[in-house]
């Protein structure tokens, strides 16, 4: 992969989503945000995910659930193009995932453990990173800073803008990362177990935030371990354990036995398993 960076756009803010001139051999329909077709993948000869076909449309709120080691994170990496499928195809916004380079359209929030913990960096500087795909090698203009400001406002973290990220609680930190995704003006928000290590009250507020963002038109893809939160908030559930056990509306998922089959035990919806 040679493309390392989306071209620096001097006009900082975009007006409409410009279409890319990549010629796709198999162009999926325009509404699919993420589309996986017959995807197999394994780090070694043992497959981690197998025969996955999945399509996520714009504006959906999808949760991917499954036991530990079920391939949830791998599936996410395949969707985002961080891994390439051994067989089948993965596309995002109608482009093959591994070739997709308009990073500003995707907001990514990981378990906070993944980011450097000791680094001196303020909340504002973290949110600022959301503008990097837009400015490239250049500097942030007034407009970029205004967007950073709005993003902080939206998640209610303005008062913390100049705090060191290391001094924040888990919930506050995750809000900062959401703000970064907002600052990049992403239309797809991908969250990988975002509430690990976050206190209970903050978890509620966090999911409320996701709900309202989804309400504002952002597609939300949630990789989650906490089944309680998933059934309460997501519209659609994908239950995974190497292959897809269930894919459909949340209500049907709750009534089905997919969970028990996927987890192989009598799991319940209160979360707290593992």
């Amino acid at each position, binding site marked *: 992969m040679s493309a390392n*960076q989306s071209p620096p756009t001097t006009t900082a803010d975009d007006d409409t989503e410009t279409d890319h001139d990549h010629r796709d051999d198999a162009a999926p329909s325009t509404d699919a945000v993420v589309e996986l077709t017959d995807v197999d993948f394994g780090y070694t000869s043992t497959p981690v995910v197998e025969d996955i076909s999945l399509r996520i449309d714009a504006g959906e709120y999808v949760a991917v659930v499954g036991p530990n080691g079920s391939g949830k994170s791998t599936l996410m990496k395949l969707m985002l193009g961080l891994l390439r499928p051994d067989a089948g195809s993965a596309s995002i916004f109608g482009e093959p995932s591994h070739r997709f380079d308009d990073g500003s359209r995707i907001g990514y929030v*990981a378990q906070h453990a993944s980011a450097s913990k000791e680094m*001196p960096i303020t909340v504002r500087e973290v949110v600022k*990173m959301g503008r990097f795909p837009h*400015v490239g090698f250049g500097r942030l203009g007034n407009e970029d800073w205004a967007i950073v400001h709005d993003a902080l406002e939206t998640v209610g973290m303005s008062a*913390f803008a*100049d705090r060191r990220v290391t001094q924040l609680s888990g919930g506050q930190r995750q809000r900062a990362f959401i703000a970064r995704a907002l600052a990049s003006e992403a239309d797809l928000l991908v969250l990988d177990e975002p509430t690990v290590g976050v206190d209970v009250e903050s978890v509620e507020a966090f999911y409320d935030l996701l709900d309202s963002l989804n309400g504002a038109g952002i597609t939300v893809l949630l990789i989650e371990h906490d089944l309680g939160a998933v059934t309460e908030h997501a519209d659609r559930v994908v239950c995974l354990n190497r292959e897809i056990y269930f894919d459909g509306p949340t209500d049907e998922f709750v009534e089905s036995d997919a969970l028990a089959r996927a987890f192989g035990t009598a799991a319940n919806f209160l979360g707290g398993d593992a």
Partner: protein
Amino acid sequence: MTALGLALLTSDPSTPLFTGDHGIPLLTGEGGILAPLYWFLDLWSGLMSWLAGATGLELLQYGFMHRAILVGLCIGVMAPLIGTFLVHRQLALIGDALAHTGFAGVAVGLFLNAVLDLGISPYLSAVVVAMIAALFIELISEATDAYNDVSMAIVLSTGFALGTTLISINAGGLAVGVNQFLFGNLSTVSAESAVILLVLFAVVVGVVGLTRNQLLYVTFDETAAAVSGLSVSWYNRIMVMLTAMVVVGAMQIMGVILVAAMLVVPVAGAAQVSRSFNESLLVSVVLAELAVILGIGASYYGEATAGGVIVLIAVAIYVAAVVIGKLQTAYGEESTPEMGSINVDESDSFGD
């Protein structure tokens, strides 16, 4: 060979070791394309002499001290600049590994000079060898998906073993003149070495200046950076190559063994007292410059090895920074502000 050994033995301030004026005329020689930098060096020397006259400081009178101070000041900027990105990725020891391969590069240069009479500066060969080693470490880590300390240790010891072997062959089995490279030396900074360092300095500062956003993103959150469309492996390669340049540049004064300290200690000190990333960059450069200037001064008057003194002062500054940092957190104002409410509807700037 013997001439070289002799030169190493009798190194004195007035005759820099590797002037590049014997053998083939060089790219980095005075008449080469880098002539403007020699002119700059003269200008700097004039400034320092004037300063010596104005202040009466004895150490500012000598040409070799002028160069040493210039080199020290450059190191004080570029070492913490690169170090900041390394330390926060838990890569503090890569500098050490590259310094040892740089030592092998010096030995290769000396060896080639002795055998083929090439007349290249050993620091130039050190840059080349260290950068190759840097790329090698990076490629290993990409293949194995982790910077593992085993591969780092292997590269480190290979470099050092190769260096000592070549130098001992070179000097007829005697460990002649190795001290200068192991521990650094103020008095042996030749005009050519200083010019090489100025070039390295320009490249390092230029590249970091251009790619600061990307390097910050990759350092802070590698996965998110990859998702946002950055090629993490390319920026990692750039990072280790720059590290190799810094390490070899700083080796002249700091020596192989202590050079990694300049990448790490000021940065660690700055992390204690800074709040933001930009602030920590600035503070680490200030702390490093402080250590370099005080260290060069103290080593001159105390007749000690500059590298060691500089590192000791840097560590003292680090300890002070830790204390100040603790006091800041203990007595800081830091009232917890109210967390704002979430208001998605108000801003409709995102999502379409």
